[in-house]
């Protein structure tokens, strides 16, 4: 009744609005997708001079083959995979243990620990002091300089803590009476009960590691240890590799293909990501 779609008098203005709104949103979606689709199409285009085409004139997979067969392009990809996998596992282990500890209401010092991690959200040392610490720890030019500082994200830690708090206390207590140690309770009961939460936080970490760029720029000089994001940027800006090489394909096609390669993993995770990230944002208020 109230939301009826009709051109009868009294409903007409609404109907026109609905049509305009739908058209606007469709155009918006196109505007969102066009840049990505254009890059995708151009990455298969052997003709080089792309202009306004949205389908390759001569389709080719050469650019992707080149990425797979060129060490200086394939290695960064593997570095990305390595830091993402190792980083995510490490980050999940460390943060979930810490988050579980923070749910222990009676533990002396719990509030102190909670505030200690919350403070880091509002005041931090800054770029140079952090760089100097990493330097003095001897982590410069190692992948640990990228992996370790990101293993504890305060926001993720608090989300995990909130998640663990929803586990019924009764189950844990009965296991305690049965003589389970805290570590056993954690690994045998809490973790299996929190699969959904762990998956969500794991995805958050994985995207963060995959998209890491700046930490590589500051902490790692050795180009052999750079990840795909850094390599992509080099390739887009100025690159000897593309200028020098005698390839059968246009440099721009390789550049486009590299963009697509760095998007693919995020695209694969996206259906899961969207659901969990939205939940995370709506959990909103971060309270100690």
């Amino acid at each position: 009744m109230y939301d009826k779609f009709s051109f009868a008098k009294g409903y007409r203005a609404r109907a026109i609005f609905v049509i305009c709104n739908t058209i606007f949103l469709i155009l918006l979606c196109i505007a969102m997708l066009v840049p990505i689709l254009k890059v995708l199409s151009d990455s298969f285009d052997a003709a080089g001079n792309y202009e306004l085409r949205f389908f390759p004139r001569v389709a080719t997979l050469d650019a992707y083959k080149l990425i797979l067969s060129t060490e200086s392009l394939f290695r960064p990809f593997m570095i990305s995979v390595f830091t993402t996998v190792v980083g995510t596992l490490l980050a999940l282990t460390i943060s979930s243990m810490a988050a579980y500890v923070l749910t222990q209401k009676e533990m002396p010092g719990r509030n102190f620990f909670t505030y200690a991690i919350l403070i880091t959200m509002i005041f931090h040392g800054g770029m140079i002091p952090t760089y100097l610490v990493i330097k003095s720890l001897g982590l410069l030019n190692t992948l640990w300089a990228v992996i370790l500082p990101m293993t504890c994200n305060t926001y993720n830690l608090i989300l995990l803590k909130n998640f663990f708090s929803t586990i019924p206390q009764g189950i844990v207590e009965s296991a305690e009476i049965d003589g389970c140690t805290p570590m056993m309770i954690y690994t045998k009961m809490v973790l299996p009960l929190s699969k959904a939460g762990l998956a969500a936080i794991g995805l958050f970490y994985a995207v963060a590691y995959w998209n890491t760029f700046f930490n590589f720029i500051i902490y790692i000089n050795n180009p052999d240890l750079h990840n795909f994001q850094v390599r992509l940027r080099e390739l887009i800006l100025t690159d000897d590799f593309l200028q020098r090489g005698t390839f059968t394909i246009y440099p721009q096609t390789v550049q486009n293909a590299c963009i697509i390669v760095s998007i693919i993993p995020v695209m694969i995770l996206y259906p899961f990501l969207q659901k969990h990230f939205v939940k995370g944002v709506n959990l909103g208020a971060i309270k100690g």
Partner: protein
Amino acid sequence: MKSMANSNLAGLQPGSQQSKMARKMLLVKKYMPFYFMFLPALIIYVLFHYLPLWGIRIAFYEYGIFGIKYFKGLENFYELFASESFWRAFINTLLISGTNLVLGMFCSVVLSLLLNEVKNGPFKKLTQTIVYLPHFLSWVVVASIFTMILSPQTGVVNSIIKSFGGEPIYFLAKEEWWRPIFLMIYRWKETGWGTIIFLAALSAADPELYEAAWIDGASRLKQVWYITLPTIRTTILVVFIMNLSSIFNMFESVFVMQNPLVYKVSDVIQTYTYRTGLVQADFDYATAVGLFNSVLSFTLVIIANKLSKIIQGESIL
């Protein structure tokens, strides 16, 4: 420590100072394994968050290759306030970040209002899926995509300009173009994502209010103005305050899109810190710049928190 009257501690006399201590010791002993579980995180926080705080002191020292040389007080800050490039970066940060904040809020609120009017479930979901997507791409990828699209030689935008007989424009290297283009790309990436929180607030609006307003003959526009907007007013304010407090944190987005040709219009405090500190290796000066930035951010967070307390009776921290 309210719940200390625990059954296994019942043997102790309550109240006395000594028994309090003993109780605490017993609890610490009971929770010993948990302290070990917290240890790895504690180490990470101490190493990468607290040690750098101690490192801030080099802002007040002369720092050489072998470490701290001598105390020089506020000299770095005098140099900072006298530096033209610093003020340029400071003003750019306020301008770019401020415009981005206002523009971002406006676009996200409008888009969430429009999305809220969509009654067709699957279409709404599809639209949301598409507009959230760019948020998950890194700034490097986004900058790369638009570098290709805006490229003066092969980019699609310049192809269109050329087909109309115009001269190709190198958008990302022209001072007059850089800021508008940057803000547009930023909107492309984050507008959709920004709607999530407003959509959640909008779903809390009471449908009966709309029915009643409709029966009373209120037009749609009036309904939006008198029912919808008041519902999300607090959310808009809170989001605004929170974004305001992170206004000085603009970095990676600018870093990946700027180039030496457009430093004048694009340099922000953080990119300036990076260049003076890590490129020119002027560690103490760059730390001073960073400290200035951190203190400003911190002050803004505290003010934002106070404002939030006044507005919604609840602090955001």
